[in-house]
């Protein structure tokens, strides 16, 4: 236990001292502000477009902007959050493998599993803080500008989107612990995501796929029932656990 805590502390110290923590917090804060700001800008942008469209004979009815518009932006911009956090942590293993920094620690009698576990914990902890920061900032603005800032279904949708991040990160770390290159880990994660996304073309499968956990907006509008997304949530939990175990296997098999 003491070893794990020491390793976790080292990982977190690394995040802070290499300035990654600060960059992530600022950027995820910016994401949080952008969602309601874009919602607020929607009528203006539509009116700009409207003028040219009106000439072609297309007209709009009155546009109402409300809390739902803000949350629509939130779910639309999730992909940026996933990409940023995945890019940030893609080299977390490769960096240590390439420089040989792990040798000193392992020859002190630390098991490799604990090294992998400390990295998994540090990464998921960072994701948790960053994701909910964006959520809270968006929520704060939404509540300030509009009524009904927390429409029914928002919590389930938000938790699902969060779990998609957990799934993607554990997938990336499973690749990362077995490879010497962060870039490959990132690309392979993208590849698996694309594969899942392609499977989603079959409508009967969609509700089981963790790659569609970011589509929870339908829960707010009433287009989706919770049973349309819950299976994917359980699948993502199971896959995250499996992938974390694979991450441990990966570092054990690694020739240092």
């Amino acid at each position, binding site marked *: 236990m003491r070893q794990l805590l020491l390793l976790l502390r080292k990982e977190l110290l690394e995040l802070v001292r290499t*300035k990654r923590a*600060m960059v992530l917090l600022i950027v995820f804060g*910016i994401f949080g*502000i952008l969602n309601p*700001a874009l919602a607020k800008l929607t009528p203006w942008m539509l009116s700009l477009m409207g003028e040219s469209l009106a000439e072609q004979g297309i007209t709009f009815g009155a546009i109402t902007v409300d809390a739902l518009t803000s949350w629509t932006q939130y779910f639309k911009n999730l992909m940026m959050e996933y990409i940023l956090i995945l890019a*940030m942590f893609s080299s977390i293993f490769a960096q240590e493998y390439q420089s040989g920094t792990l040798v000193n620690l392992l020859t002190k009698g630390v098991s490799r599993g604990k090294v992998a576990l400390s990295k998994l914990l540090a990464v998921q902890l960072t994701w948790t803080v960053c994701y909910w920061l964006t959520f809270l900032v968006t929520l704060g603005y939404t509540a300030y500008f509009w009524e009904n800032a927390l429409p029914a279904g928002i919590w389930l949708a938000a938790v699902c989107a969060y779990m998609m991040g957990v799934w993607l990160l554990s997938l990336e770390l499973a690749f990362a612990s077995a490879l010497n290159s962060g870039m490959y880990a990132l690309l392979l994660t993208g590849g698996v995501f694309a594969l899942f996304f392609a499977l989603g073309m079959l409508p009967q499968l969609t509700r089981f796929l963790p790659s569609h956990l970011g589509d929870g907006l339908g829960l707010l509008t009433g287009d989706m029932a919770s049973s349309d997304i819950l299976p994917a949530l359980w699948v993502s939990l199971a896959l995250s656990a499996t992938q974390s175990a694979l991450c441990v296997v990966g570092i054990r098999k690694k020739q240092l």
Partner: protein
Amino acid sequence: MDTIKDFLPFLIPLAIAQFVLLGFTIRHILTHERYKRGTRVLWLVVAIVGMEFIGPILYFILGKED
């Protein structure tokens, strides 16, 4: 569009966050000699052109040496 006043709650924190990030990135670029790839001029251009946040992120992921 309503008045600019409506956007102040967004603009002020956004501007602060972006300039903090930009200032911080430029300082980091100027105080470091070596980068994982690219040169000082390249990273300054990237950071400033992509200042709304893409530039600094690119630098921290691709250019920064530990």
